[in-house]
């Protein structure tokens, strides 16, 4: 099959040009650091706990599209599918720091972990800035529950950012924001399925191959292999499989209240996601699990990959409060 066509200029400059376009699109509410691939709010209050998010690019609108009030205060942006380097993270952290420390919140990948950790060491040792780290580990496909620290961060990132962002607006201490972010992550579960691959602009190559009648359950957010390949199946069957994996993991129980996120990995239609949502709700009704809010859209993509993921977040009053704070950013906005 031919490599996917993209409307780009120099494929090596995609991140730099995209960030320029992103700043334009936010008309004054965001700026890019002069020498680094980092996006920062221009309307930061004088004093607040800072939330720095980030990761590899190519997953737009996450992460740089999630910078705004009650979301990230800044984002450190890597190249496509590559964690940002420590210096980008350090400069971004310095730019968002408002005297109360910085929470790093990002997806749990070896590359991100190492680069954010190096930045954290530099900030603590050289700059005297207090840094805490919360890693999103929502992908149940990546490892069994007893190896939580081996799980990747996928679309649940959005809810984690949304809640941590709200907490970073309202809470006074880094401790408190960290605690709430950790609670969100502990209650977050996701799994994705892929129907067709996406491609990296610079190589032009599809990141994996799937036969015309195959889908992959548990596909990672960079096209890393999932837990199993199988023949394509009806939406209800796929939803059943997904929900079985998700519900049994936390596990979610009768009486729980959840937020439900269906995320387009790129080229899947909203029609498909709504049809899947129909079945998910039938299942949740049957299981006696109440849905507090639903988000169906395109938030963490893998370039033009076709597929979607489903995220459940178990809520308590505190998480609900921060999740429901109004937020506005280019990539996610809800009152």
């Amino acid at each position, binding site marked *: 099959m031919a490599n996917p066509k993209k409307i780009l200029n120099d494929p090596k400059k995609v991140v730099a040009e995209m960030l320029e376009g992103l700043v334009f699109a936010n008309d004054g509410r965001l700026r890019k650091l002069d020498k680094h691939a980092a996006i920062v709010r221009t309307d930061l209050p004088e004093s607040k706990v800072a939330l720095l998010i980030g990761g590899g690019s190519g997953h737009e609108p996450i992460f740089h599209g999630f910078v705004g009030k009650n979301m990230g205060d800044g984002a450190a942006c890597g190249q496509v599918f*590559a964690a940002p380097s420590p210096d980008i993270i350090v400069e971004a952290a310095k730019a968002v720091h408002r005297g109360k420390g910085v929470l790093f919140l990002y997806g749990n990948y070896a590359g991100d972990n190492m*680069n954010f950790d190096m930045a954290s060491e530099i900030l603590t040792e050289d700059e005297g800035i207090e840094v805490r780290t919360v890693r999103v580990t929502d992908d149940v496909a990546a490892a069994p529950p007893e190896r939580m620290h081996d799980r990747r961060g996928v679309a649940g990132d959005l809810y984690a950012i949304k809640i941590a962002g709200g907490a970073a607006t309202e809470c006074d201490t880094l401790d408190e924001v960290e605690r709430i972010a950790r609670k969100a992550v502990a209650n977050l579960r996701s799994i994705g399925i892929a129907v067709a691959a996406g491609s990296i602009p610079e190589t032009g190559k599809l990141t994996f191959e799937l036969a015309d009648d195959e889908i992959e359950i548990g596909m990672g957010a960079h096209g890393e292999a999932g*837990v199993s390949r199988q023949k394509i199946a009806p939406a209800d069957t796929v939803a059943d499989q997904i929900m079985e994996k998700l519900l049994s993991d936390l596990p979610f129980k009768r009486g729980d209240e959840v937020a439900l996120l269906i995320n387009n990995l790129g080229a899947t239609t909203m029609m498909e996601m709504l049809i899947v949502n129909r079945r998910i709700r039938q299942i949740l009704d049957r299981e006696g699990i109440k849905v507090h809010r639903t988000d169906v859209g395109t938030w963490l993509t893998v370039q033009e990959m076709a597929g979607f993921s489903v995220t459940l977040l178990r809520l308590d009053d505190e998480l609900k409060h921060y999740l429901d704070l109004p937020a506005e950013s280019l990539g996610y906005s809800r009152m």
Partner: protein
Amino acid sequence: MSDTLDATQARDMLVAVSNYMIDRTDTLTDADLAIGDGDHGIGMRRGFEAALEALNGEAPETVDAPFKATGMAIMSNTGGAAGAVFGTLFRAGSKGIPGDVIDGAGFAAFLEEGLAAVLKRGGVTEGQKTMVDALAPAARAARAASADGLQATTAAAVDGALQGVEASKAMVATTGKARSLGERSVGHPDPGAISISLILTAMRDYAQTN
């Protein structure tokens, strides 16, 4: 030739390494397509292109300086897991290089110091299907050959690394982006391990011809 490298030669060797790696972008990308996210080649290219720029200045004052500069360039420009581990290898490894020239023992010390720092940074041990699985046997082989001079040391390091690449095929990935493949990662060599073998090959070639 003297079988040691002075500061300028060390710089020239790293220039040769950088060019060698840049030329192998596609090989590395393909290896990462098989079990990762398909960007290892372009990541290494970004790092080594930046290294070339950093190295392309005045003659270095000390023999460890070009290693450190290479490490800094990779760390800042590669990104991803590779940026962290290969940046660390060169940066931390440079601290192992003693004196005015690099001899066999100095080269082995570079690998050992680099390895120790990478193990710490990556939180891995041998056998997890990473570049460590090429770097660790390379360091051991280099130390064993170090008394025989730099050429023999680099040659031994290459052999060790290649054995490591070979051995990595049978390993099940438990870190990095290949992790979730589990058993399906078996049969493919680790992309970062391949990079180690290529870096060492370029170093050996330089040592043998300059």
